[in-house]
C-alpha cells in the first residue's frame, strides 16, 4: 500500500468500461499513463488527454516472493494498451496458467492494493 502522504504514482482508472487515463503526444504519438510536462520521447508540449480500455500482453511473470505487502504468488503483466502506453498491471485470477504473449486483455480497475488490474 502507498503511504498516505505522497501522491500515488500508479495509473489512474475511471469510467465504464474502466479505462486507464493518460496523455498522448500530438506530435510523435508517444503515450504515457503518467503525468508529464513534456513528451518523454520528443519533448513536445502538445499533449492530449487520452484513455484506454484494452490491450495485449507484452510479457508476464508469476512472482513467488513477497514484494512490499503483495502476497505471493501474484502475476505481473506488461500490457501494451491499444494505441496507448505500456503499463504494468496485476492479472486477475493470477493462479491460472500464464497468459500467452499477445493475448487480448481489458482493464478491470484498481484492486484492493491500489494496483492496476487487467483480465483476459
Amino acid at each position, binding site marked *: 500500500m*502507498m*503511504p498516505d502522504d*505522497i501522491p*500515488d*504514482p*500508479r*495509473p489512474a482508472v475511471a469510467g465504464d468500461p474502466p479505462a486507464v487515463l493518460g496523455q498522448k503526444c500530438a506530435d510523435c504519438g*508517444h*503515450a*504515457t*499513463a*503518467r503525468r508529464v510536462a513534456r513528451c*518523454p*520521447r520528443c519533448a513536445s508540449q502538445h499533449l492530449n488527454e487520452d484513455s484506454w480500455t484494452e490491450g495485449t500482453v*507484452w*510479457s*508476464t*511473470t*508469476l*512472482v*513467488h*516472493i*513477497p*514484494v*512490499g505487502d*503483495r502476497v505471493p504468488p*501474484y502475476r*505481473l503483466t*506488461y500490457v*501494451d*494498451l491499444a494505441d*496507448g*502506453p*505500456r503499463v*504494468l498491471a*496485476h492479472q486477475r485470477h493470477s493462479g491460472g496458467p*500464464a497468459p500467452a*504473449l499477445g493475448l487480448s486483455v481489458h482493464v478491470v480497475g484498481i484492486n484492493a*492494493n*491500489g*494496483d*492496476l488490474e487487467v483480465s483476459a
Partner: protein
Amino acid sequence: MTGVSVYGVGTSDYGKQPHLSAPDLAHRAVLEAIGDAGTDDVDAVFVGTVFGASGIAQRALETAGVLGVPIVTVENACASGTTAFHEGVAAVQAGRYERVLALGIEQMSTLFSGPIVPEATDAEGASGFAMPAMYAMSAARYAQDHGLTPEQLASVAVKNYRNAAGNPRAQRKGVFTRDQILTSRPIADPLTVLQCSPISDGAAAAIIGPSRIGDVRVLGTSLRAGAAWGAGSEHVWGFDLIRGVAQEVYEATGLGPQDVDLFEVHDAFTIGEIVTIEALGLTGLGRGGAFTASGATAIDGALPVNPSGGLLGRGHPLGATGLAQIAEVVNQLRGRAEGRQVVGARRGLVETMGGGAAGTDGNACVVVMLAS
C-alpha cells in the same frame, strides 16, 4: 584532452557482512587502492552509492584519512560505481583535477532481509514491482521473440559460479549443474534464486590520473540514461541503451568487441548477460543463449565474459559493483587475476546497467574500455 590511467585499485570482500559498516567496507577498498597506487595524494573523490545514508561518503572517507578535498556523491542505481569512475576520468581529462579517487560503497544486508524494497514514488515500484520481475519479463519476451531454453539461461549461472570459485573475494561460488540452477527456489518465472544476484555488502575503489607508462589506460568511457521505453519499443528493456553506449565507446576508440580480450558485464540476472552480450556485439541478436551454452564466453573461450564471477558469483553490492568490475579488469590486464586469469589479456571492457525508473530504457548505462 589528457589521457587517463588507473594507478591503483582495491576492494573489500563481497558478501553478506552485517558486522561491517559502510565505512568499514570502504576503508578496506580505499587503503588497498592507495597501497596499489603507491600514493594517497588525491585532489578529489567521486563516490557511488545507492542506499547509502546522507553523509556516507564523508563518514567513510574520514575512516580512511581522506578529507579536505572535494567529495562528490553520485547515484545511478546499479551503475553508480561506474558513474563515479566515469566522472572522475572526465575530470582528469579536462584538467580539473590531477588525481581522483573513485569509490563505490554499499551495505545492503543490514537494510534488506529479502528482495530490495521497491521505490514507492515510482509508478511500477509502487505496484509491487521489483527488478527480478523486470528481468523475468524480459526473459519471457526474449524467449518468444528469439527462442531461449531454460538450459541456456542456466548456462550463464553455471559459468559465473565456476569463475567465482577462482575469486577469493567472491560471494557465491562453486560447481552447480544446470539442473540445480533451474530447480532452485522460484523467484519470478522463469528466474530461480540461483539466476538472481545475491544481496551483498562491499566496496571497491580506483585511483586515476594522467596517463603513465606501465599503468592500465582508459581508452574510452561513455555514460547516458535510457530513452523512453514502452509500447513500440523494438527490444527488451535495456538493450537499446547498452548497444548505444557501447557504440559510442567503439567509435571513440576505433575498436570493436572482437578486439577485446575480456568483458565484465551486468549479469544481475541470467537473462541480463544474454541480452548484454548481444547489445555489446559479441554475438548476433537472438544468439546469446546458444553462444553462452557453447562455452564461447568461458574464461578459456573466444570472448570471456565475467571471469570474476560477475554479479551472480562475485556479488552485487549495488553502488560498489561498477568499481568492482573496474578492479577486476585492471587486475586481469596486469596478469594478477590468479585462479581466473584470462591468458594474454591486453584489453578489457566494463558494462554496468542501472535501472528502475518506469518508462525509461534504464536509469544509466556505463561502458568503459581499458588496455594494458
